[in-house]
């Protein structure tokens, strides 16, 4: 394993220390591993917090700022944060209008946020709403399963909820629009290589040079199946087809198309993939009205990419377009 780290045991805190140095406009609580906007709590504004295991950077701390998150809780690598961190963040951002928890659908994340919400209710009485994202079509969705993993759509939900809160909307409305965004999104990912968890020191799974994993999540979990290495065009089909099969994305309001890198894949390949995805969407009669290409929700140094489509409507589009000023997403300000 070769990584720019000091010690696997201190990766998360060391990286947060760097984030704090690089972004003096943020407040970073190294003790609790919580990253806050500089101006929390904002009286009367719904607080938006998220969090999860580390290793997905810029998610979540890179999305803390104006128009997006008020705080992000960083767990250990691929391990959800603990209730204390989430409780601390909840209290820290509470401006009296309640707090929205945006949680990716993983057993650990859901349980830790749930425990934190129980503690917060008992402790402070702050009103909490929770939106759980689950957009990964690689995962079977039925009554007998734990539901889909939350992946790419989480970035979009954080942006949209953040914009709604920034507008001064009430908690129920913010949660409502976040939930709609979450339900309108679908994702599919592919890995060319496995990532390496620092504490483990070798790749999570072995992938021969002529094989790729289709249907991977963002924790280095093996995917649904292994197929021969293919061209970008064919890989784009492996992503686009199951996403379009799962939800009807045609319609005049168009979609937001998001091609995301897994951490080890350079931008030249992501743009190339976007070109292939755009061509397939056009062929399928899906009109794209917003686009984003980059590594926004990653899986350590895994090479690969994911596609997320979000079905837009006027409100979602307007909230997406609203100003945002965070380390990783910035426009309009």
């Amino acid at each position, binding site marked *: 394993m070769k990584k720019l780290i000091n010690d696997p045991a201190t990766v998360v805190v060391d990286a947060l220390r760097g984030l704090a140095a690089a972004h003096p406009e943020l407040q970073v609580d190294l003790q609790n591993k919580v990253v806050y906007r500089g101006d929390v709590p904002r009286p009367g504004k719904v607080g938006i917090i998220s969090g999860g*295991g580390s290793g997905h950077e810029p998610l979540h701390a890179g999305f803390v700022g104006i128009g997006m998150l008020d705080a992000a809780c960083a*767990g*250990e*690598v*691929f*391990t*959800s*944060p*603990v*209730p*204390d961190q989430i409780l601390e963040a909840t209290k820290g951002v509470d401006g009296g209008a309640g707090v929205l928890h945006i949680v990716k659908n*993983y*057993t*650990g994340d859901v*349980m*830790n946020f*749930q*425990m934190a919400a129980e503690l917060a209710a008992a402790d402070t009485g702050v009103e909490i709403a929770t939106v759980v994202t689950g957009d*990964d079509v*690689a*995962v*079977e969705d039925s009554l*007998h*399963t*734990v539901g889909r*993993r939350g992946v790419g759509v989480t970035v979009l939900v954080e942006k949209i909820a953040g914009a709604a809160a920034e507008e001064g909307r009430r908690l129920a409305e913010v949660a409502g629009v976040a939930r709609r965004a979450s339900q309108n999104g679908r994702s599919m990912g592919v890995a060319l290589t496995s990532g390496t*968890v620092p*504490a*483990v020191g070798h790749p*999570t*799974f072995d992938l021969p040079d002529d094989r790729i994993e289709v249907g991977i*999540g963002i*924790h*280095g*979990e*093996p995917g*649904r*199946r292994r197929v021969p290495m293919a061209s970008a065009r064919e890989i784009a089909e492996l992503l686009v087809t199951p996403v379009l099969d799962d939800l009807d994305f045609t319609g005049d309001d168009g979609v937001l198309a998001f091609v995301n890198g897994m951490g080890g894949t350079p931008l030249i390949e992501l743009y190339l993939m976007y070109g292939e995805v755009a061509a397939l969407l056009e062929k399928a009669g899906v009109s794209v009205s917003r686009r984003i290409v980059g590594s926004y929700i990653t899986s350590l140094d895994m090479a690969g990419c994911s596609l997320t489509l979000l079905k837009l409507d006027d409100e979602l589009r307007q909230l997406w377009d609203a100003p945002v000023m965070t380390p990783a997403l910035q426009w309009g300000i």
Partner: protein
Amino acid sequence: MPEPSSAWEVDVDALVRWMRRFAELVADHREDLTALDAAIGDADHGTNMDRGMNAVVASLDQATPGASALLKRVGMTLVRTVGGASGPLYGTFFLRMATSLGDDADSVPAAVFAKALRAGLEGVVARGKAEVGDKTMVDALAPAADAVETELGRGGDLASALAAAARAADAGRDATTPMRARKGRASYLGERSVGHQDPGATSAALLIVAAATALPAGSL
């Protein structure tokens, strides 16, 4: 021949021994647990449990007011330091045991301890909604709780009850291998989860083995 009352009781020292033994086993199996999790999860279960049990061991140096308070502190420490799925689940296990033991006694009879184990298991099930057969830690914990009750019911002592529990937990752990996961991260793999032993069931079996070897030792 030892006095029955002593052979049948679990005291604070015994619980401390249990936690230390579990921490040792987790440290010894850290890489194995993580490797199992790498196959069907996210390669952190050994790291998570080891971090948590190190924190638990560190907390054992503090004064220990009684059995229930000790287990409560263990549960809170795990909730505070482990994260992921296993943090809340193991944490809940010990918190519910503590609640079940109720008002603090220095030591508790085996039957009371058995009831607490059952309560811990029920806490895990309440939190995680997993049933036996879902390929989770419940597959090791549930047969263990059953075995303790059965063995005590037919007059066995704590040592033999926990020995039976350890055998049952090991068997439950082994039984997870052919299962298709229905809960936790492994469930995302669908059919591909078949053929792999569940990491959480593996650490849970270590917990019961630790109980079997550490709990009775000093009380006999």
